[in-house]
């Protein structure tokens, strides 16, 4: 009995499709795990800087599309992106196995493509898996985003599968799941039945220790980002892996890269009786059936055809000589369309006001962000920084940064402020749009860590002069309690994290509504000290329209967007 089970297991393991499934499950699980860990979860161990415990940006680092776009736009390769060779080189030799075996986006689509649907019953299903000319659309997209990258934009992230996945799942699906789980737990814990209540408590403890976010995250456009993803999933009900076949520019790039690969599908014409079984579970739409040329660049190497052929006519072999269609198979006119799209995109997008004299006041970028043109050339709108931000302050832009900047990160102080010692967004940014920063380089906290030794000899002021600034705070004196309503407050001053504080108080005598004289403290901003963290705006009691607000002017990344002629050095206090 046991022996038979064992031999069965071995037979199954020898099937290539089973190995592929194991690989897919492993990499999808890894992706989800890393995404869940893209947040600071208070760990044991005291003091020191807060860092990510896991290489959460792993999938971006091995993404050749992001690397290529980054290289084209910046004429350099940021940090870990060299690791993308780990994928690109094997694909050049072996073909698009990455899509079929590793890519988590592909795995999700694989799963949804396997769902039963009326549109894919019987003959229709086989027809749907034949090669279709519209599969070349992805090459047009690839061409367009790469040409656009050459003009200096990171728009590739709108279509890059990992960007799309992190953005949709991290900013919409996971927060939604978190909300649902909390609602369930809350309902259970407030139940009148003791058993349900204790089950709820243990569920709460178990989930809180593993997957639940400590604070419910909220993201603007969350519903939109989630719907885009769900619609892409739904396309699988008509055409299996429509995303991978027709749209994915990373798949297109790997398809092009596989042009000279030595591994390919061998079709034994003698034994093939064109039973169509190979087409029933084909993932790539690459025509594994006998009698038709194999489309090398479309094949995801899922191995389903090899396993489903009853005559063993199909096999992957090296150095075979058989008719096949390699490369993009793109007619010149489509090629030109892609080139034109890419070439036109940047000039058209940049002709708007986002980069002109007057920037949007709400376009407050994360600490460490490069100046806007450099930022836009690197940022792939993946949402990693927004996912990791501990205060939920980083939000996907909608109108703040122009059309080109859609889904790039903006700091939204009404939702959250920039935590003084936190540099997690710069740690997770895969492309250097938010350049690597340390708490010391951020400079909002003086005399800690490396600066400890020389804190007293004037270095403090030097660090302050060079500190990162995101913008400047301003008072709306018509709404501020001490200014407009003869009422004590100054919560903004309490929260101001820099020292000396950028908000200073002046004690004045005012007249209240009853005509009585009253002494109170009115807040003012010192623009040379303000770092634009937004803590004042976040803490202001006038929540829906705070009486103190931060705008982007004065941000250290920009030379032009400044108020002061020179920043006076803060006077050392006795």
């Amino acid at each position, binding site marked *: 009995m046991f022996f038979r089970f064992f031999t069965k297991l071995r037979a199954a393991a020898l099937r290539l499709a089973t190995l592929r499934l194991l690989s897919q499950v492993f990499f999808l699980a890894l992706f989800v795990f890393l995404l869940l860990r893209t947040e600071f979860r*208070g760990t044991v161990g005291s003091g020191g800087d807060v860092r990510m415990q896991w290489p959460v940006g792993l999938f971006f680092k091995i993404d050749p599309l992001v690397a290529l776009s980054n290289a084209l736009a910046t004429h350099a390769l940021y940090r870990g992106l060299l690791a993308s060779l780990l994928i690109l080189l094997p694909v050049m030799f072996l073909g698009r196995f990455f899509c079929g075996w590793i890519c988590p986006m592909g795995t999700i689509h694989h799963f949804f493509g396997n769902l039963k649907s009326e549109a894919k019953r019987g003959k229709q299903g086989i027809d749907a898996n034949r090669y279709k000319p519209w599969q070349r659309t992805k090459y047009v997209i690839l061409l367009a985003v790469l040409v656009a990258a050459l003009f200096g934009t990171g728009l590739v992230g709108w279509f890059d599968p990992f960007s799309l996945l992190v953005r949709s799942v991290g900013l919409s699906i996971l927060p939604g799941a978190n909300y649902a789980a909390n609602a369930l737990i809350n309902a259970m814990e407030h139940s009148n039945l003791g058993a349900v209540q204790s089950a709820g408590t243990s569920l709460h403890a178990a989930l809180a220790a593993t997957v639940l976010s400590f*604070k419910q995250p909220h993201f603007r456009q969350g519903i939109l980002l989630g719907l885009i993803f769900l619609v892409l999933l739904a396309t699988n009900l008509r055409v299996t892996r429509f995303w991978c076949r027709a749209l994915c520019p990373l798949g297109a790039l790997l398809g092009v890269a596989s042009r000279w690969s030595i591994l390919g599908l061998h079709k034994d014409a003698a034994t093939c009786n064109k039973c169509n079984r190979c087409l029933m579970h084909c993932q790539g739409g690459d025509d594994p059936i006998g009698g038709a040329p194999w489309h090398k660049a479309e094949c995801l190497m899922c191995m389903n055809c090899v396993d489903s052929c009853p005559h063993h006519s199909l096999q992957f072999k090296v150095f075979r000589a058989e008719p096949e269609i390699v490369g993009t198979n793109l007619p010149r006119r489509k090629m030109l369309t892609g080139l034109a799209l890419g070439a036109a995109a940047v000039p058209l997008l940049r002709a708007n006001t986002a980069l002109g004299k007057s920037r949007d006041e709400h376009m407050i970028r994360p600490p460490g962000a490069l100046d806007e043109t450099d930022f836009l050339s690197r940022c792939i709108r993946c949402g990693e920084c927004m996912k990791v931000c501990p205060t939920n302050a980083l939000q996907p832009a909608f109108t703040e940064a122009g059309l080109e900047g859609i889904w790039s990160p903006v700091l939204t102080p009404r939702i959250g402020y920039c935590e003084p010692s936190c540099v997690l967004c710069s740690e997770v940014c895969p492309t250097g749009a938010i350049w690597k920063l340390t708490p010391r380089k951020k400079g909002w906290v003086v*005399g800690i860590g490396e600066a400890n030794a020389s804190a007293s000899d004037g270095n403090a002021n030097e660090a302050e002069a060079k500190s990162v600034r995101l913008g400047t705070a301003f008072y709306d004196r018509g709404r501020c309690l001490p200014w407009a309503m003869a009422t004590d407050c100054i919560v903004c001053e309490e929260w101001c994290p820099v020292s000396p504080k950028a908000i200073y108080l002046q004690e004045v005598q005012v007249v209240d509504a009853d005509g009585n004289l009253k002494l109170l*403290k009115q807040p003012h901003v010192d623009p040379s000290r303000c770092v634009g963290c937004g803590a004042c705006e976040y803490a202001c009691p006038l929540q829906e329209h705070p009486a103190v607000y931060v705008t982007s002017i004065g941000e250290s990344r920009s030379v032009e967007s400044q108020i002061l002629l020179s920043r006076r050095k803060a006077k050392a206090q006795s």
Partner: protein
Amino acid sequence: MNPEDPATDNSAHANAATSTSSAPTALDCMTRRDAMLQLLRVTGAGMATAAAALWLSQNSARPASTTAANVRRDHTVEPNAALPEMVVVQGNDPRAMVARAFADLGGVSRFIAHGDHVVLKPNIAWDRTPEQAANTNPDVVAEVVKQCWQAGAKRVIVTDVSCNDAERCFHRSGIAAAARAEGAEVILPDLARFREVNLGGEILQSWPVFEPFLGADKVINLPIAKHHGLTGATLGFKNWYGILGGERNRLHQQIHQSLVDLAAFMLPTLTLIDCYRVLLRNGPTGGNLEDVALHKTLVAGTDPVALDAYVAKAYWNIEASALPYLQLAERRGLGRADFEHLRTKFSQSA
């Protein structure tokens, strides 16, 4: 298909699942038996719906907050005329200072009984390290935890409702690690664990209070002495802001009255004000080590009013008369501001 016409071959296979009772008959109505059964079913369902609706409508009540009278616990212990009411300990080791303070006050078992459920309320409000002196010294917290265990406490909880991101505050203040190392239960402010409580104050009525503060036998207040822009200094009273959720930023509009309302709701067993490092300027957040003075002092006692008055005078030279909340508190019977007349003991520890 047309249900009126059972003869079409459409319905023959489409309705294979329907019961035999609806087999084609000459009469265009159901049998008496079926009719009665259906009537029974619909009557049952109707009665159940009506009963549920009636029951639910009886349960209808406007959501009301728990009143302070039901949840307020007096955590104080009997005064002892032979023992000091306030002790001031100086030393180099915060842990030894805590141990000394307990010894001077008559031993920890005077405050913590065997089997007590103890909650410690340090200040863990800001994302700062211990050297920056914006949060209570982690060694002070750890030693108080240890003392509570020694007195036979059943449960020791360390918690606070932070201002900055709680996970960062608990982590970088070093308090989570130090308290866990001593075996305390560290509870982060989870939004789902606040209970709406009527505090019964003059201006503070219904506010969300963090649940762990509501079920304790003993509560120990562990503030750190810091500068504050509005009141000059933030000490023991101000630390109670950290038991509340909701929009605490409104409390500052009448800070003195709200401080007293809160202190009258939360009567601590003991207060230990951490003056090991004192944030003299740019409080309560600080950030710059130049603002921090090393005073290596711990002030402890059973009279929260006197303690605040003493520390304000000692480090900022603020008279009790310049802190209106102290007078309000005195009138409310929470203690006395003239700390000079208290039984006080000064001592040195290791």
